[in-house]
């Protein structure tokens, strides 16, 4: 089976096909799409090229066996969780501990997709909430989302480091979301 022929099929459709006829080829096509994301993620945590490659192979095997046991709905988030846990377990075996990230934030990634999207009043709420962010976050959020600048450009014009820019945008976005959701509840 040539994977390119299946580009138009979504992840969910591929999973459904697998659950319908149990053929592992569907998982093959699905997992191929995530090879680079998995390789990068493993490299980020394991910091060794060979180990990262082996890690991806082990994750592939794990995913194939796990999906035979239970049904997964949000595949991408689930796969990320499997990959991250696999890497953290490897690190734990070497006595290296990494601080856990906000799990709620992880799950929110796909669940919130259509929650806020279509509400028209969200737009004006976002505009009014941006002002409530602190200065660093507000500057970075405006430059990134409204002026569509890249990290490097923002770093150059503000004097922050790229890492700082990234975290200001991330935190700014999270805070903005909280503010908007709060206001939506009150309305």
């Amino acid at each position, binding site marked *: 089976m040539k994977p390119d022929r299946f580009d138009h099929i979504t992840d969910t459709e591929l999973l459904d096909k697998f659950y319908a006829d149990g053929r592992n080829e569907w998982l093959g096509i699905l997992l191929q799409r995530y090879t*680079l994301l998995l*390789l990068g993620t493993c490299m980020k945590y394991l910091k060794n090229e060979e180990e990262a490659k082996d890690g991806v192979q082990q994750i*592939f095997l794990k995913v194939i066996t796990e999906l035979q046991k239970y049904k997964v709905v949000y595949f*991408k988030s689930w796969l990320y969780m499997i990959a991250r846990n696999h890497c953290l377990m490897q690190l734990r075996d070497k006595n290296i501990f990494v601080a856990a990230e906000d799990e709620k934030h992880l799950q929110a990634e796909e669940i919130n997709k259509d929650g806020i999207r279509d509400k028209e009043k*969200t737009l004006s709420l976002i505009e009014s909430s941006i002002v409530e962010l602190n200065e660093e976050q507000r500057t970075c959020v405006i430059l990134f989302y409204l002026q569509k600048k890249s990290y490097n450009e923002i770093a150059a014009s503000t004097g922050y480091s790229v890492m700082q820019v990234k975290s200001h945008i991330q935190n700014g976005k999270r805070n903005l979301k909280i503010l908007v959701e709060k206001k939506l509840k009150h309305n």
Partner: protein
Amino acid sequence: MSDITNILNNDDQLSEELLLKYASGNLTAEEQHAIESKMIDSPFVNDAVEGIDAFKNKKQVQQYMDELKRQLQKQTEKKKKNKAKRKLPSMDWIITAVVIVVLLCVLGYTVLRMYNSKKEETNIEKTKN
């Protein structure tokens, strides 16, 4: 201003080619921004980009990927062949079981017949005596 709603949205699939180009710094500012918005939206993409960045030789990444994809394809195809192979021995077992049952029936039947004919013989002998 329509882009303002994108702040709270996220969207799917990024091509591998774009991600690799991003890592080697071969993208326009606009394309960079597109990748970076996915990074903000998805911790998975964010971790992956940081990881790809850590590879010393970006060409090596493509090699690793080709290798992994080839192995994955083999794995997912092999499983199916194994299943097909497994079916044959299980059919063999059914056939052996059926043959054994038939043989047992035949054996039982002949034993019973022999037993009955012996009984008849002794009965005939008894009546003669």
